[in-house]
């Protein structure tokens, strides 16, 4: 039975140019996280963080059956962020990763900062804020469960893309004159899709299953654990971040070439010398409304990219909003579930 493990980067895969930068990024994050946690948890921080870190460590040891005979392990960082909050999750997951490296040799010494960035910063923050965004301010149990699953899935995929980026820049920034790779050997066009794909298809599913299962069990038996963090406040700043990201999308026009595996039939022809018949037959079945992120009728590439980004974000938000509205209507029909409802914003501080 295959036993598939998660995304710890060992020593030797990242060059000094990368891991030193990751340390420089992580040290201030740890300092800020420690200050934030000290302010909110006071003297209770030591046992709560220690137990949070112990739980973060232990959850990675559970074998979760996925499909066939295969099992996987979850990172659990989104779950910890939902229970303890994102800043406490930064500390708890970082400590768990340090102990994994220092006590069990899982993950490297020089790569600790990179691993902490991917798993103790990116996953908790993306997961926590996505959870709160989808959950809204008075979520039912089912909405909590679905929100946690979506948040955990997206967060681990984003974390994996970050790890893929760190791997993928190695051949670009460090290689011998003859082309010999000195660290991780696969370029961005291979490393990022490879990491993203395995997490989209497998690890993301494991993470979502685990997070949804635990949140459902806690909502049923110990709902106050899901209410330790303040109730949702309007996340207007998140819309500002989305707006800035939309404005930055034309940067994609500057990137040369096509992502690995995303070739069209003309690129397949130039690479292989022929186009496989199945590809040729099925390739033209679906005509995209905005092929290659261009906007029909708009000749300016940058403007077309911007419009494509706005349309894409609007569609994603619309679908999420629609699903949320449907769930909320179902909840109203079923009657509110007091066990799964968070207290009003001013009650929990």
């Amino acid at each position: 039975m295959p036993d598939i493990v998660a995304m710890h980067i060992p020593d030797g895969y990242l060059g000094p140019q990368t891991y030193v930068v990751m340390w420089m990024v992580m040290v201030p994050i740890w300092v800020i996280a420690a200050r934030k946690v000290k302010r909110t948890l006071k003297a209770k921080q030591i046992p709560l963080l220690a137990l949070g870190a112990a739980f973060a460590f232990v959850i990675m040891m559970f074998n979760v059956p996925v499909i066939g005979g295969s099992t996987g392990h979850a990172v659990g960082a989104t779950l910890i962020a939902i229970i303890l909050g994102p800043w406490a999750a930064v500390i708890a997951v970082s400590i768990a990763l340090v102990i994994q490296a220092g006590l069990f040799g899982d993950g490297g010494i020089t790569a600790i900062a990179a691993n902490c960035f991917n798993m103790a910063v990116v996953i908790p923050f993306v997961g926590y804020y996505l959870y709160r965004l989808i959950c809204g301010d008075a979520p039912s149990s089912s909405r909590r469960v679905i929100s946690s699953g979506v948040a955990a899935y997206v967060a681990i995929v984003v974390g994996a893309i970050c790890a893929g980026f760190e791997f993928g820049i190695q051949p670009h920034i460090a290689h011998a004159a003859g082309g010999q790779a000195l660290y991780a050997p696969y370029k961005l066009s291979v490393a990022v899709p490879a990491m993203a794909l395995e997490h989209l298809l497998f690890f993301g599913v494991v993470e979502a299953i685990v997070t949804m299962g635990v949140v459902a069990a806690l909502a049923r038996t110990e709902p106050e654990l899901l209410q330790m963090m303040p109730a949702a406040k309007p996340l207007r700043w998140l819309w500002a971040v989305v707006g800035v990201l939309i404005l930055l999308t034309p940067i994609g026009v500057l990137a040369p070439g096509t992502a690995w595996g995303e070739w069209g039939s003309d690129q397949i022809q130039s690479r292989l010398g022929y186009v496989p018949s199945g590809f040729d037959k099925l390739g033209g079945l679906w005509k995209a409304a905005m092929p290659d992120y261009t906007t029909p009728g708009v000749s300016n590439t940058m403007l077309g990219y911007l419009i494509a980004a706005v349309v894409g974000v609007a569609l994603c938000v619309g679908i999420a909003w629609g699903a949320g509205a449907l769930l909320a209507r179902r909840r109203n029909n079923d009657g509110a579930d007091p066990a799964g409802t968070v207290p009003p914003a001013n009650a929990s501080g």
Partner: protein
Amino acid sequence: MSNPCPCCQPDILPAARRRGGGRSLARKTADSVAGAITDVLQNEETAARPGLLQRLDPRVKLLTLVLFAVTVSFVHSVWVLLGLVGLTMLLAAVSRVGVASFARKVWASAALLALLIALPSALSYFTPGQAVLSVGPVTLTEPGLMGVATLVTRVAAAAGFALLVIWTMRWSDLLHALSAMRLPDVVVATLAMTQKQILTLLRTVEQIHLARESRTLGRGTNRENRAWVTERMAFVVRKSMKTADDVYDAMLARGFTGAMPSLTHLRLRPRDWVWAAASVALCAAVLYADRIVGPR
């Protein structure tokens, strides 16, 4: 006749589901958890042996082994990296940690994984260059193979130095070293408490899975097993939070004020200075040798 306790009744799953060989999910998790606990206990045992590295001051040992790990990351020559792999084996031997098990741990896990991940990068598709071996459409190139060799030897050397830290240093000594290096007390205390609580939770998880294994006939479906696993994870969350409250109460009851004085006073001895100087000189020599023989 009284009814048996419900929690002691076996879960009898349909015979149709009793298929497939090997270990059950519960047994597999219990074994891996037991393995983790054994690893921690073995680390403490090897760290107590009278070897070269064990006799050093923990601060000096930690700093010099990390210095070696950092040096490994700057080296580009396969031959120099092989020399560093040899150095890790030599240090393992003089530290009496068991060269065979040390080599097995380094090569059978870290280096083998690196080889499996990196090997496709030797194909001409990923790394163009002079062909070394061609079988049909598959061509391995010289820079590709050298890249694989560089990665595998670097991973082996780095994993070796990391393993020497783990196998020759007690966890309590590591915490003393970190404390002496001005890491905030709250971080050191949290690390210390985390290690203890990890062992406690691991034992709980092992017992949960052994109990499941001993009272379950058949294997169950993936859906049933997933539901069971996530319920147990939720239990671990609840237990963790409850234990945090209990520990905090105990800290308050014992008069915890936030100050964490250490009773251990570390003192550098001549052999620590000699080892530190030798390590720095060796790292400088390694980097110089790499400049001469390494790829440009």
